[in-house]
């Protein structure tokens, strides 16, 4: 009896050896694992507000409460200028993309270390972990965005044609969060200091971005440097697209280019280290 291959299709052969040098690996592998990516995002969303009384209501309450606090302290007490826009709308328009970014970055930086159990027991491209953390909070972003629209409606503010920029700005904030998460999650495996550094970084980053103040408040000569922060462009862009005010210039394109370069470099760094994650975790 002749030996017949039990497999109907030709199977590819994979070589397992120590990783050396820098490369991007097989990014196409992420595509092969897209269903897992979907399931993990779905799990995170499903589990996030389990056993809470208010459930997904938290996705509304968190930005709204922050907006109220900011309005009272920065808008009223500190008399922060807001380019003539009512301060609640002014801060909410910034908080919606900012909250998304902050959540994505902080959970993204913890994503690999937080999944150590799975990492030591099963293989799939480790890049899935930061991706899940970055894409998951988009649902909360969507909910908060609807609240923002409602708030604008309440104040009788109608967005102009610039609203078409929003998808591009959202994409830029996703890419920024992804670039940060890919770097930090890999660094975190080796240096647990990352865990303590990230909250500070996020806090400082918020003050470096026009969340509580308008970009027009930044002295002219610092403006270029200021907009090198991609989130400054995103937030200012969000605000001007929805409620008017000053808009970010060409410099945001430069920051977007920096984000893409650092995302690619981050993915290469991540790939270089991912083979050792199971050993180090």
């Amino acid at each position, binding site marked *: 009896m002749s030996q017949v291959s039990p497999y109907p299709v030709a199977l590819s*052969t994979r*070589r397992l050896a*120590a990783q050396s040098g820098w490369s991007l690996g097989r990014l196409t592998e992420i595509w092969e694992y897209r269903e897992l990516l979907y399931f993990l995002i779905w799990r995170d969303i499903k589990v996030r507000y389990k056993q809470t009384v208010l459930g997904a209501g938290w996705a509304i309450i968190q930005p709204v409460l922050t907006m109220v606090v900011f309005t009272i302290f920065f808008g009223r007490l500190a008399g922060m200028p807001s380019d003539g826009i009512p301060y609640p709308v002014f801060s909410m328009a910034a908080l919606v993309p900012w909250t998304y970014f902050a959540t994505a970055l902080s959970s993204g930086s913890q994503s690999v270390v937080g999944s150590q159990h799975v990492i030591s*027991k099963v293989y799939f491209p480790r890049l899935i972990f930061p991706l899940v953390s970055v894409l998951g909070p988009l649902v909360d972003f969507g909910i908060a965005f609807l609240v923002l629209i409602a708030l604008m409606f309440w104040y009788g503010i109608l967005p102009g044609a610039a609203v078409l920029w929003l998808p591009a700005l959202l994409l830029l904030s996703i890419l920024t969060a992804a670039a940060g998460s890919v770097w930090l999650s890999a660094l975190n495996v080796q240096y647990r200091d990352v865990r303590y550094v990230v909250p500070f970084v996020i806090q400082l980053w918020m003050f470096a971005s026009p969340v509580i103040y308008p970009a027009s408040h930044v002295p002219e000569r610092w403006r270029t440097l200021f907009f090198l922060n991609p989130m400054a462009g995103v937030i200012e862009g969000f605000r001007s697209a929805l409620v008017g005010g000053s808009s970010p210039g060409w410099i945001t394109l430069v920051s977007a280019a920096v984000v893409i370069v650092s995302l690619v470099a981050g993915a290469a760094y991540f790939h270089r280290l991912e083979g050792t994650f*199971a050993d180090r975790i």
Partner: protein
Amino acid sequence: MAGAPVIRAEHLGKRYRLGARGRQSSTAGDAIAAAASRLLGRLRIGRSTEVSDDILWALDDLTFEVQPGETIGIIGRNGAGKSTLLKILSRIMEPTTGFAEITGRVGSLLEVGTGFHADLTGRENTYLNGAILGMKRAEIERKFDEIVAFAEVDRFIDTPVKFYSSGMYMRLAFAVAAHLETEILVIDEVLAVGDIQFQRKCLGKMNDIARHGRTVLFISHNMEAIQRLCSRGMLLDRGRLMASGSIGEVVTKYRATERRLVDIGRFNARGRSGTGWARIRDLRLVDIAGRPVPGRPAEEDLTFVVDLELHNASMVGASLRGLILELVIHSDQGQPLVSLMSIDDEGVELPSAAGCRITATLSGPTFLPGRYRLNAFLGIPYREHVDEVPDALEFEVLSPVHPWRPYELHSSRQIVCRKASWTCTVDAPFAGASVP
């Protein structure tokens, strides 16, 4: 055997740095210190040197081939490198040296229920776990009913698994894993789940898998199961491939070397680690007369004698004082059973001296007959490991000479037998109801 192998491994090796294992420079401070010392080392010697004591080859130069459809049992003691091999083949870890070429998808079942979330229902976890193991959504959908039926959890499939009994949880977890259809399956002792009846069912399922032309690599300490499931065996010892061939031959060889390899009752400091300024010089099990013995009957006291000495007294004040000695008895499978500490009530304080002899007696009856291992630790808990010796001593508990129970002791259950102080009182209502 003709045809191309599905797995071809050449000079596969995996190195660990002991001590640093699992937490290689876990803070930036450590990393800076390590980088500084590397730099200094380079300046002085020209290249960084590695102290050979600190290196463990978990796998050492493994070369083998696996043909399509073979079922391979991987046998060896704990720490022989079995799990490391499976982790490399399933891409969880990278080898340090050599390579392996694999044709086809590899499904790794190193654990059942990886990624299960307590808050999700059985149905949700089935999809999630299936996806984590590498199944496509359509594939899970197709097999869903079969999985649920196999796990016998149909009524609870929409209940969060946190409300499941541990048996139900394990059954569902195994059922998902068992329906994985990769060309190569890598399995680590997942059979040890559930009650005996379900274990049998699992074994049956594994048998089906093995017969359907798929390639299976299987680790187990259960020689009976491994012989039933596997056609070929590979024997590993300390990372090396000692034997490969028909499963019967390999199991026989394993049993023979097992008896020869281990110096039962002899102190073994091979795996020692720690700062080392004080050391355990010798550790032995003794009989009533104080003579070293490899084993003691189950009903007798277990008396361990430990000789301690200062190894490098100049480093710290020349005294053992303040150190704690801990002895942990493990089952042969590595399950920790009992910890004895010198600071326990009725323990001893280590003296201000350069050396001493400590005796620890665990009163009998102690354990069911079988093999046990002892880990020894000298140091300050949570602060300093001065001398830690895993598997410092292997000893045997023998069948009782004077049984204290009228029933046979079942050695398959590794439990501790102790004598408790019992009392029995009769409550007033029962007192009058005595049989006339």
